[in-house]
C-alpha cells in the first residue's frame, strides 16, 4: 500500500477503479437475473405469439403462417372446453377442503403444545413426498385393487368390479382433488399458523372480557386478523392449482386424461397436443398456452377480489378504537392486580403471602403503563 501511495498516478487510478466499482457493481450483481429472464422469460413469451400464429410441428419445424386459425381450432375442440371444466372442478374440490382443514389444523397447532416441532414436522410429511409418486400411491388406493373400491362394494354402494373412480368423471376429480389436498393442507396450515401467531394476544384477552368463547374468538378475532395471509394462501393455491399436471398425468397408465377425457386438465391437454405421442401440434399448443394464461390471470384476479370481500366483510369491525380497547384491558388487568394485592395483603396479615398475587402485580403495572 505504501508503494502505491508514493506514486500519485496510481492513486488516481485506484480511486477511479474504486468509483467504477461502486457505480457498476450494483448493476453487475442484479444482471444474472435479468439476463436469464430476458432469454428464458421475455423471448419465449414474445416468441409464443409467433408460434401460435404458425403451423408448427415438433418433427417438421416451422410451417406456414396461419394467423388466428390455431386459436379458432382450439376453441372448436370439445376437449379444450372439457379440460377447462375439469381443471376448475378439481380446483374447487381441492381448494375448499384444503382451506377448511388447514385453518382447523393451524388453530389446533396454535396452542401451547408439547413437542411442537414434532407435530409441525409430521403435518408437513405429505409435502416431502414427490407429487408424481404420491399420485401413483393414490391411484392405487382408489384403483380396482385398492382400499376404497372394495369398501364401496362391501357397503353395496357399487356393483361393477372396476373402480368408479376412473370411469366416473366427478369421482375421478374427487380422487385427484384428494391427492392435492393431501399434499398441500399441512403446508398451508403452517403458513396460516405463522400468521395466527402474530395476532396480538391482547385481542384475545379483550374478546374474553367481552365474553366470547373459543369458537367465537376464532371467527371474530383470528380469521379477520389473518386476512392478508388468507389472501396470499388462496392466491398461491389458485395459481398452482389451475396448473395441475403431475396428478392427472400419473393417475392412469396412459397419462392422457382418461378414455373420455374424464380428468383431462388444461395443462395436460397442452402437453398432449404439443409433446404427446400424437398429434404433434405445437402451434395449437402455443394457442392453448395463451388462452390458458389469460384464464389464469382473470381467475386469479376474480379470486383475489372475492377473497378480499369475504375476508373483509365477515364480522363487522369493532367501532371502538384499538386504543380504547387497550386501555380497558389495561384497567381490567390493574383491577385484577389490585384485587390480588389486597387479597395477598389480607392473607399476609394472617398467614404466608400468596405467591401468585405477587407475580401478577408487575404485569398489572405494566399494563397501566401502556
Amino acid at each position, binding site marked *: 500500500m505504501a508503494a502505491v501511495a508514493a506514486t500519485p498516478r496510481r492513486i488516481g487510478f485506484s480511486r477511479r477503479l474504486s468509483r467504477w*466499482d461502486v457505480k457498476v*457493481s*450494483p448493476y453487475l*450483481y442484479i444482471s*444474472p*437475473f435479468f439476463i*436469464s429472464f430476458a432469454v*428464458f*422469460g421475455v423471448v419465449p*413469451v414474445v*416468441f*409464443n405469439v409467433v*408460434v401460435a400464429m404458425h403451423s408448427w410441428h415438433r418433427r417438421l419445424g416451422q410451417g406456414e403462417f396461419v394467423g388466428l386459425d390455431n386459436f379458432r381450432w382450439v376453441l372448436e375442440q370439445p376437449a379444450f372446453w372439457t379440460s377447462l371444466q375439469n381443471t376448475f372442478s378439481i380446483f374447487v374440490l381441492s381448494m375448499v377442503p384444503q382451506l377448511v382443514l388447514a385453518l382447523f389444523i393451524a388453530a*389446533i397447532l396454535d396452542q*401451547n*403444545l408439547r413437542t411442537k*416441532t414434532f407435530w409441525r414436522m409430521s*403435518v*408437513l*410429511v405429505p409435502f*416431502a*413426498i*414427490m407429487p*408424481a409418486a*404420491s399420485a*401413483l400411491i*393414490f391411484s*392405487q*388406493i382408489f384403483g380396482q385393487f385398492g*382400499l376404497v373400491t*372394495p369398501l364401496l362394494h362391501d357397503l353395496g354402494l357399487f356393483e361393477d368390479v372396476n373402480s368408479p373412480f376412473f370411469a366416473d368423471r366427478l369421482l375421478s376429480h374427487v380422487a385427484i382433488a384428494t391427492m392435492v389436498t393431501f399434499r398441500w393442507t*399441512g403446508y398451508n396450515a*403452517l*403458513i396460516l399458523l*405463522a400468521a395466527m*401467531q402474530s395476532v396480538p*394476544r391482547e385481542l*384475545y384477552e379483550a*374478546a*374474553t*372480557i367481552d*365474553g366470547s368463547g373459543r369458537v367465537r374468538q376464532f371467527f371474530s378475532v383470528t380469521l379477520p386478523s389473518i386476512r392478508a395471509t388468507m389472501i*396470499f394462501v388462496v392466491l398461491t393455491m389458485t395459481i398452482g392449482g389451475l396448473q395441475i399436471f*403431475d396428478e392427472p*398425468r400419473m393417475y392412469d*397408465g396412459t397419462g392422457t386424461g382418461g378414455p373420455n377425457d374424464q380428468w383431462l386438465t388444461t*395443462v395436460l391437454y397442452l402437453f398432449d397436443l*404439443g409433446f404427446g405421442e400424437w398429434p404433434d401440434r*405445437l402451434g395449437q*399448443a*402455443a394457442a392453448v*398456452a395463451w388462452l*390458458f*394464461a389469460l384464464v*389464469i390471470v382473470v381467475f*386469479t384476479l376474480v379470486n383475489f377480489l372475492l377473497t378480499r370481500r369475504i375476508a373483509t366483510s365477515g364480522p363487522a369491525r369493532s367501532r371502538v378504537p384499538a386504543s380504547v380497547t387497550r386501555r380497558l384491558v389495561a*384497567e*381490567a388487568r390493574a383491577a*385484577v392486580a389490585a384485587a*390480588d394485592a389486597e387479597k395477598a395483603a389480607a392473607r399476609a396479615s394472617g398467614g404466608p403471602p400468596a405467591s401468585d398475587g405477587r407475580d401478577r402485580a408487575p404485569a398489572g403495572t405494566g399494563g397501566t403503563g401502556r
Partner: protein
Amino acid sequence: MSTALIENISGKGAKRYAQKRAAKGRPVNLRTQDHNPANRRPGWFTYAALSVVVAVSVFPLYYTMLLGSSTRLEIAQSAVPRWVPGPQLVQNLASILSHHQIDFWRSFANSVLVAVVVSASTVFFSTLAGFSFAKLEFRGRRPLYVFIIATMAIPMQLGTVPMFIMMDEFGWIDSLAALIVPSLVGAFGVFWMTQYLSEALPYELIEAARVDGASMFRTFWSVAVPAARPAAATLALFTFVGSWNSFFWPAVVLRSQMTMPLVVPQLRGAFTADHAMVMTGVLAVALPLLVVFAVAGKQLVSGVMAGAVKG
C-alpha cells in the same frame, strides 16, 4: 371477578353474560390465561385430533410399504395383504434398484446433479442480487425490484412451447442442460434474499468493510454472505425440493435421459399389473426426499412459516 367491574369495562351485554356464566357455576375469570391461545395447555381433544392428522399424513406411505412387502398374488387376494411391512420389501427393493428397464441409479445421479447445481447457483445469484437490492444505492433500484416481483405472476406454461423450440435449436433436447440453464436464477430467490438481507445486514458492517478498503465483491463475500447464511440455507432447501420434484418440464425435454420423477411412469410400463413391484418402485423413488426431510425437516417447517410472514 365482580360482574360490576365487567360491566364497567365492557358494558351491559358483557355483564349479563358474566352473570349467566356465574349462575351456571363457571364465572368469567379475567385472570386466567386460557383466553390466550399461546399459553393454553391443550386438552386430550387437541392431541387426539393431531394424532388423526398425523396418521392420515403418514398412512399413504405406510400403505405403500405394506404393498411393497407383498407379492403380486397377495395383493390380488386382499387389498390389505398385511399390517406390518415384511422382509419381502428388501427383496422387492433390490430387484427395483437393479432392474434394467428402470435405470434407477442413473436417474438418481441425474436428479442429484440437476438439483445441486440449480440450488447452488440460485442461492449464489440470489444472494448477490439481494445484496445489491437491499444495501446498495443505484438508479432504478426500486422499479427494478418491483419488476422482478411482478415477473413472478407470469404463468410458466406460457413459455413452454417456445422454450421447447429454443432448446431444440440449442441442441439441448434430451440433455440435462435444458433443466439446469433456464433455472439458474429465479425471481423468488432474489425476492427472498432481498427481504432477508435488508433486515439482517446492518449498514455499519458494509461501511466498515469499505473503509478497510475492501472492493464491492470482497464486501459482499466477507460481510453479506455470512449474514445471509440462514436464509440461503432455506432457499437452497426449497430450490432443491422444487427441482427434485419437477415433472412437467423434464417430461417435455427429456427422451432417454431420466430424472427421478420420470421413473414413476416407467414403473407402470415395466411391471404391467404387478402392483407390489410398482409400489416398491414408488417407495424407492420417494425415499431420497424423505431422507432429506428427516435431516432438514425442522428447517423446512421454519422456512414455510417464515415465508408466510414475508410473503
